[in-house]
């Protein structure tokens, strides 16, 4: 079972309290009614399935109920960082030792 840090509650809680909610930073086109089939396909059907870092949404469904964003490594299942919905995508880079670093943050 994973531990996930809810950015709203400010603490790590067990995975049981959370629900996965799909890929993050997929913007709903506006106005959506007018987009063509290719744009709809990209918005609705196509998702990343990377080996490595993935940006995804989680909801603290049995806690504060808030949706938030997370960066997770699909190989180790490690959560690199979580941040509130609506915040800009956090860039993460791998360092030489196989660890991760948030861009713009020095160790």
């Amino acid at each position, binding site marked *: *079972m*994973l*531990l996930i840090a809810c950015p709203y509650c400010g603490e790590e809680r067990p995975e049981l309290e959370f*629900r996965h*909610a799909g890929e993050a930073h997929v913007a*709903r*086109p*506006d*106005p*959506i*009614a007018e*987009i063509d*089939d290719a744009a*709809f396909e990209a*918005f*609705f059907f196509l998702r990343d399935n990377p080996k490595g870092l993935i940006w995804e*949404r989680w*909801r603290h*469904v049995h806690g504060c*109920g*808030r*949706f938030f964003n997370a960066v997770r490594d699909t*190989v*180790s*299942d*490690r959560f690199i960082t979580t941040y509130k*919905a*609506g915040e800009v995508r956090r860039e993460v880079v791998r360092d030489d030792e196989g660890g991760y670093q948030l861009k713009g943050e020095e160790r």
Partner: protein
Amino acid sequence: MSGAMRIAGKGRLVPARRVGFTFDGQAMQALCGDTLASALLANGVHLTGRSFKYHRPRGILSAGPEEPNALLDVSRGGNTHTPNVRAPVQEVFDGLVARSQNRWPSLTFDLGAINNFLSPLFPAGFYYKTFMWPKAAWTRFYEPVIRAAAGLGVAPKEPDPDRYANRYIHCDVLVIGAGLAGLLAAQAAAEAGADVILCDEQPAVGGALWHEIDTRIDGEEGFEWAQATAQALSGRDNVRVLTRTTAFSYQAQNMVALVERVSEHVAAPARDQPRERLWQVRAKQVIVATGAIERPMVFSGNDRPGVLLASAARTYLNHFGVAVGANVGVYTANDSAYAAAFDLADAGINILAIIDFRDEVNEGLRELAAQRGIDVLCGHCVTGTAGSLRISGMRARPRSGGPERKWKIDALITSSGWTPSVHLYSQSRGKVVWDAATQRFLPGPPVQDMVTIGACNGTDEAAALADEAMAAGKAAARLARAAHDGASSDTPSQSRPDLTVQTSRAGALLGAGSREVLKGGKAFVDFQNDVTAKDIELAVREGMRSIEHIKRFTTTGMATDQGKTSNLHGLAIAAEMLDRPIPEVGLTTFRHPYTPVSFGALVNHGRGPLFDPTRRTAMHLAHEQQGAEFEDVGQWKRPWYYPQAGEDMAAAVNRECRTVREVAGLFDASTLGKIEVVGPDAAKFLDLVYTNGWDKLSPGRCKYGIMLREDGFIFDDGVVGRIANDRFHVTTTTGGAPRVLHHMEDYLQTEYPDLRVWLTSTTDQWAVIAVQGPKARDIIAPFVEGIDISAEAMPHMSVREGQVCGVAARLFRVSFTGETGFEVNVPADYGKSVWDMLWTRARALGACCYGTETMHVLRAEKGYIIVGQDTDGTVTPGDAGLGWAVAKKKTDFVGIRGLKRPDLVADGRKQLVGLHSRDGRTVLEEGAQIVADPHQSVPMTMIGHVTSAYWSENCGGPIALALVENGRQRIGETLYVPMAEEVLAVEVTETVFFDRAGERING
């Protein structure tokens, strides 16, 4: 004596403390502290079972959890029993009943043993080749026969009567394995102030100290030191020592699952004692000190009862005081077997010869052997053994060739070296690294907050091991505390205990060493799955190259022991055949669990009534009192129908259906999902999540709404009442409430966070009583205060706030039956008393209570859909005949773009229609397929399926709803429903079967 093979004065058990047990019906004596294996050996029993495939006689190989052979069926003498219990793990208690497995009619005379002589007929992979044809014979004939002949224990048929416990626990440092390394690490971490859990799978700490009696620590015998150290650790507030506790699963973020055998060893467990306890540990730091497992030698006839691991023989002697034989041979490629031989010799057991595969052995060992008069034959190999139910002899010759010598023996102990137990490290997703110098896989860098120490880390030398362990304990405590406080403090360093270790584990052989030595008999690699060296050679000859393929072809390492004693031999033989280095052939994955874990421990409390939470409505007791049969709807218990004396389900449902339409009925609708949508932008928000418009709905009015997913398919439906300008009472399907709220929250929080709207689940807060039928108004009228419920003042699809039975209520004028209907919403606490009052009057007026079955029939008579029954996630509002509920003028709602997708606007979509059985009596089967031409060849072209089908008492015949290609254009056509017995002809109709004009609803 408790057994003829018990040696007076040897071992650590107390001779006076005896217990009795039976093995295959024969009464035997054991000592308190014996394992089933040591007790059997003490009684001279080596033969414990028959092998999986060839039914070969097999005995005890090991003295630990790695045991592949000695699997027994164990019970307390009652009805239930546990199959496949490893004899060296099960402690004997008074009254234990053990039975051997996989033999018939008896262990010593087993008819299945014919497989051994037929073995040339079924080498590895024979299932794949032999039983290919005819296809049908596989399921009907081959598989049942093979399954009956192969296999191990028999699963119990009775429900498990035992209780299992479960605990979650957090700690700073979890130390797995309480051998020398684990104890020192735990001690160091505890001294440094960390919260420590130390666990070990054995009944007592010590690890290898159980058998290595030549290790002295601070002047004490190693085992005694270990017990004293564990005792001292247990006394500390910050340490928990768990014995009989196996760490079996290492998961992400240092979550480790342990299973503690709480009462498996107890003759009469106390009532409050669980059988096992599952510990789910979250540790800041994990120290893996799981030691190493000895490997047997691979040679012809290496599986006979009486062939044991050298360390096992040493454990049985030094801990249990049991001799594994009177005349013992030794075959080794490793120094530690010498220590075993010397201990046995010093206890008066005759060691006939030490056959050492290696060309040279260190002079000291030679010397010690010579002192005891033991022959050491270096550069020799064992070429075969004799005996049927027990080994009776061995043959050996120089590896380079030469004359064979024979010895009469009754036990043979072997060692080809030690395999570090990297299982948990591997489960933590670390990658093992091949160490060519010592011929073993060792843990690589850690990928979680953990460290491996001691023998499982390849640290052999005692002083180095102690330093490593103490440093690891201290470091883990420091790191864990830094995670706590953000600061680390230095703790005084401990001094290493004074250590004398004599047993050397130098030397290793992987595989058989040479294929030459394997001629003339079966040399087993995997004992439990009966895989021989030849099988692995065959796999390579047949083209398998990766160990993953070889493993699956031969099944080596795939038994319940997961190849703890066999994997490396299999790998080495394959590598030799392929002429490639071992790491290139690869190592298979170590899977969870480390050792078999009972379902009871995993399932724990979550079975029977606790498998899933049960939700009951506020009126549940009233339904029980009225004799309702209940139906599970999600987690809800809903009244299904209310049978009266002498009624079966059909009769009850027919009566309820008739009564509702003729008089009236009461229905518990509390399980409907309810969401309160509040805020200045509430209408705007509903405009976005529903297909229809909400802005113009006046307070006091209701509307049926459909919710789509972005792809344009129906997601949920329900009636929404506007209570005030800024307040809506949303209802959802019974099963859909959580996902609808989740869906709404998703859009509110992430797409429209600026809207001033708040969502609250009120499903459990409102009890809902539907009163439906011509007399519905009559029934509720005397109880309603402050609301004019006349047809004029309160038309269909309206909502009022007032009082019902003196309780604040929301009264809806809605109908899911097509009759005049009200839904009384009162706070849940009042649900039962309001129901009782309404029912008293309803009954007096000739009304009935009705359940979900009648509700289904009545709504189907009116063609009202149930989302999830008449829709399946590929149905649009247009398909369901609900196109009118999609606003044409809105510029946005969830699903607006999806509805324009080419496939969703194309011709030929399946549409919801009614079906009328031509014979006027047969109720169709829900899910049945529909075809246009019943005479076409199979497979037929299916053009739709039945979604709902009932007997309608009110229509006097069967009714059905179906999704049919171009259904609405086919109205009047005859289609066909092919069933197993007959083909039914049906006429396509409108979806409304009863009161097509829809007048009754406005009464």
